[in-house]
């Protein structure tokens, strides 16, 4: 109990003193973690449905293969879950190759699937490994309503440059500081939007803001069934700012064994972009993610 008092006193004092000192940075990995205990594999996911869906597929497949897993989904943006992976809070997470590469190396210009994966292999944080990538891809895309597209005659992203000063862009908060986000749009395309509105990662906020006109251009996912449902126009990425985004498992090397590798590689070998779109649409109709995952694995003859 003395310890508790000490902790709370410390917490109080530190909170008050925070303004004075710069301190360390908990979001920059402490590196002290040694990972989860024993053989248990903790599977994480980002804070959007598709990531949780793929993580569920990994989870169900590994459980069927007899691996002890724990699910820790819905963690947040890449900036947060990559730290969690490095400090051992999680061991495995489904990733998108291009976005991960841009996160690790902001100057990278690789854009094809092979180039991205080759560079990614050299940039991965020590202690983590890539498994086989799948053909399934889910890119960030800039979408506009068909009305906006007609009004400004928009087909590709570079068409936005002359009119962007009148338009608002919406996307997840991390987009504001990302190369494959606002920064890249300025540097690569020379597009300066009137404002950037922090919303969510391809979720209901961005979709609502887009259809209600609060923003004119939104960052959404190419596998979002809402694109067709809401009659949106996806702008072509004519300067390849958004690289290939193959789904690929990233895992703590210490946790990797042949069972896990074989199981996840078998999943990656069969997963396609069409599967993602179909499963996203099932999820948005309310089906339980684990059920969707099991159904896919059964169809694919993996469990």
């Amino acid at each position, binding site marked *: 109990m003395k310890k508790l008092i000490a902790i*709370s006193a410390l917490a109080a004092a530190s909170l008050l003193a925070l303004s004075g000192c710069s301190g360390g*940075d908990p979001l920059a990995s402490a590196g002290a973690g040694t990972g989860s205990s024993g053989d248990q594999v903790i599977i994480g996911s980002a804070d959007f449905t598709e990531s949780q869906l793929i993580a569920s597929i990994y989870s169900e497949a590994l459980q069927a293969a007899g691996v002890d897993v724990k699910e*820790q989904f819905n963690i947040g943006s890449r900036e947060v879950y990559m730290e969690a992976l490095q400090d051992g809070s999680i061991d495995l997470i489904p990733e998108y190759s291009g976005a991960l590469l841009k996160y690790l190396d902001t100057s990278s210009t690789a854009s094809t699937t092979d180039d991205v994966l080759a560079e990614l292999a050299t940039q991965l944080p020590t202690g983590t490994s890539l498994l086989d990538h799948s053909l399934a891809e889910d890119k960030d895309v800039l979408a506009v309503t068909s009305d906006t597209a007609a009004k400004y005659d928009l087909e590709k992203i570079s068409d936005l440059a002359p009119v962007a000063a009148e338009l608002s862009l919406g996307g997840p908060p991390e987009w504001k500081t990302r190369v494959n986000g606002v920064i890249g749009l300025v540097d690569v395309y020379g597009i300066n939007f009137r404002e950037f509105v922090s919303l969510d990662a391809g979720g209901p906020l961005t979709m609502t803001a887009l259809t209600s006109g609060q923003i004119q251009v939104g960052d959404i996912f190419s596998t979002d069934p809402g694109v067709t449902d809401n009659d949106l126009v996806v702008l072509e990425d004519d300067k390849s700012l958004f690289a290939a985004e193959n789904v690929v498992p990233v895992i703590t090397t210490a946790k990797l064994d042949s069972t896990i590798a074989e199981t996840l590689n078998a999943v990656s070998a069969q997963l396609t972009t069409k599967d993602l779109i179909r499963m996203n649409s099932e999820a948005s109709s309310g089906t*339980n993610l684990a059920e969707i995952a099991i159904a896919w694995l059964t169809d694919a003859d993996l469990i």
Partner: protein
Amino acid sequence: MTVDWIWSNLPRITELTLNHIGLTVIPTILGLIVALPLGWWAHRSRRSYPAIVGAASLLYTVPSLALFVILPQILGTRILDPINVVVALTVYTISLLVRVVADGLNSVPHETVQAADAMGYRAWQRLVLVELPNAIPVIAAGLRIAVVSNVSILTMAALLGIPQLGTLFTQGFQLRLYVPLVTGILLCVALAIAFDSLIVWLGRLLTPWRQKTVTA
């Protein structure tokens, strides 16, 4: 559809509810344990009362989301560790209860304290056997507010991926589904009512002498 969703997610809902119960009860109890000596200190020393109570209530203004994320730096824990949430809620509980404990002890009638002194009680005996039991109604009232707030504040941890009932909110939101949202809200309210009644019941159990005057 409604029943289907609940039925097919029942194991998950159960797990989230159990997590929620644990993450509410542990910080509430820890908070009470820490608040008792602090409140007693504030009660004993009139000069430090404003400082202790003021500092404690200031902690309550730190937004929960910020606290959840700042704590790993202070504690050296990992960012997804539920410990961060436990400590954060403990801090809020302490913040609420220090004043309550101090005021509860202050509310014990002077005559009662003097009677204890006259009976030859030592200071600690008087505190444990007379003052604290007499302060129970006030402390229990504060504890009810603390536990009910904790049930609600805890849901914010869903934004960090800590699994508890708030997870149903973020998932329901991402999928635009009402059923998980409403299920989560109703379970939170039910938990709050259950904890609240539990404390009322415990408070009565611990103050048998009040029973008669209350019912009379």
